[in-house]
């Protein structure tokens, strides 16, 4: 189903909050039940809209981290201290609350097993979310597409979906972490920001033409995409999802 179908006009739907689970000290996983949800593609996102009693509104987009699963979807929200929406979602929202959301949206930053690979996924912090949907879908579909994930996090405790990534490793999925601020004792992995050398070591060779998906804060994505092109990867095979500074 690569390409598009006539999707119909999107509108705002009311979803129920089912579960809120701390994932790391700063990130919570939030599961919604969305009546009539017709499924989504790995990499797509939802727009969430909050309305205060006086009509004041704020909207943000969050990548869907779950593979298609009936009418349930999961997002991962990082609490930004000076954010307007993220502290509400992580501190105030409770199971049983309702929320307005619109989606699924986005056909550009998506992957499905029929597209093949190999795959190179590069995540900065909570940018792992849409890539997690791809990884989970790959597992559910028992795809054997050769997949490499390079994940940049501040510390071990702040790796989002760390346990699940550990479990899913193998069967053609390799996961490399870089911990940029603090590392646990005995850590032998990368300890710096993702750069050209690291990508040269981790990524497939350019002549394997991997499909590349990079997601995270805008400066991270810019640096990674530029480095990959410098290494010889084709720009048209690199898809980016940048979390701008308004993603608060």
């Amino acid at each position, binding site marked *: 189903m690569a390409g598009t179908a006539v999707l119909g006009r999107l509108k705002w739907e009311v979803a129920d909050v089912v579960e809120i689970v701390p994932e790391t000290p700063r990130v919570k996983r939030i599961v919604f039940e969305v009546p009539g949800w017709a499924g989504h593609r790995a990499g797509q996102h939802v727009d969430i*809209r909050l*309305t205060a009693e006086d009509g004041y509104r704020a909207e943000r987009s969050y990548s869907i981290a779950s593979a298609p699963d009936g009418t349930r979807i999961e997002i991962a929200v990082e609490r930004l201290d000076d954010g*307007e929406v993220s502290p*509400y979602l992580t501190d*105030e929202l409770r199971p049983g*609350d309702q929320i*307005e959301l619109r989606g699924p949206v986005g056909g550009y930053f998506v992957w499905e097993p029929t597209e093949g690979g190999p795959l190179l996924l590069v995540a900065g912090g909570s940018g792992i979310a849409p890539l997690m949907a791809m990884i989970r879908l790959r597992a559910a579909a028992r795809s054997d597409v050769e997949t490499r994930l390079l994940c940049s996090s501040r510390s071990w405790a702040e790796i989002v979906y760390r346990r699940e990534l550990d479990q899913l490793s193998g069967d053609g999925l390799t996961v490399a972490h870089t911990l940029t601020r603090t590392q646990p004792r005995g850590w032998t992995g990368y300890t710096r920001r993702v750069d050209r050398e690291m990508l040269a070591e981790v990524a497939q060779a350019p002549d394997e033409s991997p499909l590349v998906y990079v997601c995270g804060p805008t400066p991270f994505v810019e640096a990674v995409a530029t480095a990959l092109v410098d290494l010889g990867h084709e720009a048209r095979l690199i898809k980016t999802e940048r979390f701008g500074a308004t993603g608060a």
Partner: protein
Amino acid sequence: MSLISRGFRGRRADGDPARVPPGQYLTPDFPVLSAGPTPHTPLERWDFSIVGEIDEPRRWTWEEFQALPSEEVTVDIHCVTKWSKLDTVWRGVSVDTLLNEVETSAEYVVEFADGGYTTNLPLEDVTGGKACVAFEYDGGPLEPEHGGPARMLVPHLYFWKSAKWVRGLRLLATDEPGFWEVNGYHNYGDPWREQRYWGD
């Protein structure tokens, strides 16, 4: 009305409601909104021009511009995206100063900026003390993300009428809608009459 999100307030500031135009909310920050990438024109290459329906075009280099009389003003600003900020402090050169001794029959003006942004107004909305070219904000040099080295300041209209990275004014006999006016926003933009969009 749509679903109210229990417990959601957003980040709002307190202030005198009489100073907040309809549909606006007070913000404690100074949101950075931009139609394009931040330009970085070095001051040695910067100039401000007045062109168009004018006896002789005028031009000031940065040094010449800094030598002009400037004033500190405290104004409220209102963005069409619904945030307002009260008592913002700027230093700038009044447009009246720039148009001093200018002969023109023009009735309209277009502000033009680095990056290609334009916005249009009646000439009378930038004269009579209503507008200045601001180069300082809150006591310091205007930051690039907020329009530095210099931007227009026309506080009686929605803030898209105050072009960031302004490089000049073009005087015209007829009105010429600018970037946002062509693409959906109101041609005039009075926040007190809530003139946000076409047809408002």
